[in-house]
Each structure stands twice: as C-alpha cells, then as structure tokens.
C-alpha cells in the first residue's frame, strides 16, 4: 500500500523540465497554485488543466505516476468534497435529516475537486522532476535574503532534504513492521475505527525507535564527512539561470496574466 506514494520521489529523467532550475520550478508551482485559487471559473480551470498537461508531456513521465500521488490523498479529497456538498449554505434541492444538498454545494464541491487534483498533480510534477538536493538548493537560494532576520535557511533546507530522502526508506520500514506484526497476530483489516487506531501503536512505536536510531547514525555519518553547517560550503551543482529558465519565467507569468485577464473578464461579465 505504501508503494503508491509518489510525493517526494524523484523520477529519473533528462527532460526539459528535469533540467530546469529548481527555483523556476518552485516559483512556478507556487504561481500555479495561486492561479488555481484566484478565480472559480471553468474557463480558467480548462486553461490551467491544459497548461498542466503540456508540462506533463514535457516531463516525459508516464501520467500514471502523477495520478498515483492523488491516491494517497484520496481520503482527504473525499472528505472535503463531502463537507462542501452538504454544508454549503444555499437553496436546498434535496433534504435529509440535518443534511441538505444545495446547488451551491455541488458547484463548490466540483470546483474544489478540480482545484485539489490540479494542485496535487502540480506538486507531484515538481517533486518527480527535481531531486531533493536540487529542491533544497532552490529553497536555500530563494530564501537566502531571510538569513538577515536570523532565519536558519540552510538548516531548514538541509532538514527538508533529509526528510525527503528518508520517506521511501521509512515507508518500506513501515511495510516490514506491519508484516512482522501481522505474523504475530495483529489485525489491520478491522473495520472498527477504535481497533484500527489501537493497531497503529505497535506500528508507530518501532517505527519511531528506528527513525531516531537512523537519525543519530546519519548525524554521525554527516559529521564524519566534515559537515559543519552552511558556512564555507561549496556546491557540486551551483544554481545558474540558463536561457530556458528565463523563458520559463516569461511563460509562467504570461500564463498567470492570461488567467487573471480571463477571470476578470468573467467577473465583469464580458463573456
């Protein structure tokens, strides 16, 4: 079950998107997310979806991979959609007990579903095409100005990169622990929510113990390799903007501009 999580896993490749500067991808992802929440309007969503599709094609990663990331947050999605369906105030078209289904509810549920899908796929694209090291390099460089206000930018970036690196390892470990506990008679297939939560304890305890042990090992290994914080550190792959990155910025902000224009035209009732 844990094999499905693609969030935070790099997909080996050499496409245009892979080679792009991580700062572009970071800013791009944020811009894209903002663009999704600016307007609730099908024309805008259609444009966003097309834009995303083009990017996916450019990454040369099978689309299945992106959609797998969705599976992991399926529960969250269903939950928010259901909440929106039944708890949005408006004209009820169907009433049952305290639940009422409203036209506005259906509308906002659909909007939300589209938004979440596009949002998660776009985040997956970033993590699939960017190695955590690049990602942290990007974050470190983007937020470097904040070091002035004593924000430990390098340390945060390093922690994030290590967390990302250990996700697949800890996932695998969880799988192993679950099998080991199943072999000893633990039942994870119970439908009862209380039983299910109780079942998490024999998984989480060994998982945490092992995570702490790994952390202490890793700290030792990093120290042994002369790690001493961000001071005086050089990079194997220092970030430098290339022509394609500038072009990507232009396309990105062009896209944002079109979305805003499209949305505003709609708001003012031009179409």
């Amino acid at each position, binding site marked *: 079950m844990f094999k499905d999580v693609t969030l935070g896993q790099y997909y080996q490749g050499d496409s245009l998107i892979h080679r792009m500067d991580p700062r572009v991808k970071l800013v791009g992802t944020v811009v894209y997310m903002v663009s999704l929440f600016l307007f609730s309007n099908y024309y805008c969503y259609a444009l966003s979806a097309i834009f995303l599709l083009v990017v996916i094609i450019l990454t040369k990663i099978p689309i299945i991979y992106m959609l797998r990331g969705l599976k992991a947050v399926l529960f969250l999605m269903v939950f928010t959609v259901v909440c929106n369906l039944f708890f949005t105030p408006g004209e009820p078209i169907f009433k049952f007990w305290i639940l009422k289904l409203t036209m506005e509810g259906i509308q906002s549920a659909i909007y939300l579903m589209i938004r979440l899908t596009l949002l998660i796929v776009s985040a997956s694209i970033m993590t699939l095409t960017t190695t955590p090291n690049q990602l942290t390099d990007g974050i470190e460089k983007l937020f470097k100005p904040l070091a002035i206000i004593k924000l430990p930018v390098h340390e945060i970036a390093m922690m994030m990169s290590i967390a990302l690196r250990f996700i697949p390892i800890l996932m695998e470990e969880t799988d192993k622990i679950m099998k080991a506990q199943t072999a000893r008679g633990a039942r994870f297939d119970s439908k009862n929510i209380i039983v299910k939560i109780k079942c998490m304890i024999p998984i989480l305890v060994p998982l945490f113990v092992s995570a702490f042990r790994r952390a202490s090992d890793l700290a030792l*290994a990093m120290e042994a390799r*002369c790690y001493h914080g961000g001071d005086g550190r*050089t990079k194997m792959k220092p970030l430098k903007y290339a022509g394609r990155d500038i072009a990507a910025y232009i396309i990105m902000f062009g896209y944002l501009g079109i979305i805003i224009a499209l949305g505003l035209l709609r708001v003012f009732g031009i179409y």
Partner: protein
Amino acid sequence: MKFIKAKEVTYEYIRRDDDGNVEGINRAVDNVSLDVKEGDFITILGSNGSGKSTFAKHLNAILHPTEGSVWVNGMDTKEEDKTLAIRQSTGMVFQNPDNQIIGQVVEEDVAFGPENMGVKTEEIWERVEEALKTVGMTEYRKYSPNKLSGGQKQRISIAGVLAMHPKCIVLDEPTAMLDPSGRKEVIRALRALNEVEGITIILITHYMEEAIYSDKIFVMNKGQIVMEGNPKEIFSRVEELEEYKLEVPQITRLAYELKKKGFNLPDGILTEDELINAIKGL
C-alpha cells in the same frame, strides 16, 4: 611513518538512571595502544561488545578518549580546530548503508564531503568522477541510492569518503548488513584501494575471512587488545580466538584439526590452495 598513533586510550560510558544519577561506568575501551603505518591494511577483529566500534570512532575525532591520546597524521584529536582536517585525512564508513547516504542521487551523495570542505565546483566534478571510477560505480552515477544493492550502496559510501581525498579510511563493520556476494564486492574494492592507491585501510569486523589479506591484525576483547600480529600468526592460535568468540574460517579450522590429529601441516593456513598444497606435500 606512523600515520595513526593511539596511546593508552580509555573510553568510559557513564550509565545514568532515570533521575540522571550515575548508576555505573562502562569501560568500552581499556588502555589501548596501537600504531598504524601509512599504506597498511589493518584489521581490528572482535566480537559484539568488544569495544572495536567505539575505538574506531576515536580515529575520526567523533569520540574523544577519557584518558590517553590519539594522533592522526600528527594531529591530536583533542584539538578542536584540527577536527575537520582529521576527518578529511581519515574518512569513515559505517555499518548501515542506508543511514549514511545523504544524497538522493549517487553523484550528489559522493559530492557531499567535498562540498562540506569547500572544494571548488569544477574540482568536485573531477573528484566525483574519479571516486566513482575507483569503486567501479560510474555507470550508476545518476541512480537513486534506493535502487542499489547493499554492496553497491557501501561502494558509494566508500566513494563518498574517497572524494575527500583521505590518506586513510576507517570502516566500521561495513559488511555486517550485506549478503556474501556484497561482502566480497566491498572487500575487493578495499584491497584495490590499498594496493593501487596506497590508501591506509583500517577494517573493523567480526568476520575473520575478511582479515586474511591484511598486513596486521589486532584482536579486541572487552575493550582491550588481546592479540596482535600478521594473519598467519593470529590464525594459528585457533583455541585462543575461539575463547574471544571469533569464528575461525573453515579452512584454517580443518588444517588445525588435521594437525591436532598428527598430520605435519604448517601453522596458520588461510586459503584452500595453501591447504591443498600442504596436503600434497605430505
């Protein structure tokens, strides 16, 4: 020239109870003195809890002796401003390959050490190239470490240390979590490093087979060095080794038993060929 010199090193762990009161003191390393020449292949043998790993951590200035001193390349490990220089000249590889790989891509992991040292970008690329070639992992440079076998991961860890251009590498049970083929892979890589590149190797292990090729063996038990000598000398003392809970390789054991039965075989036979030749010569 003595590259590493340990003089009367003692290291104590202080055990505390839940309230932080001192419950007792564990002496993990007890009065250990040893010298390592540059270019040597040294093996430190010992069973679980013999203090060999604790001692190894002293060579990299991760631990500091409670009593006594350790000099690496002429630098005292107690001097804090020398710590980085010591870690650069004596790299360390640990037991669990997963817990020492920092990068998500092989080449980025190998670059981690040089990056910390502040090596220039172009030179980092050269070093990574060279280190990966030395351990024979060049074709995997773009891979994710998670997709590699245990032996390959350990070779990456070795490359990560090599890229720092050390004079000596300390390996703390690098094969304990590997299968037999992975184990051979790592030992082969170490021998090549020692013979071709002239790098001093200090191998900490409890597998005696891995000690066959070393120039000198130290056996540790309960924090002390109890035996020291070349493989032939050490391996001929079968009963003593077993007392220290070390498993003697089958060939050596067979030769030893034959000799006990009255066959006139030489002491300390290490390999199959040696035994065959010795039996033929009877």
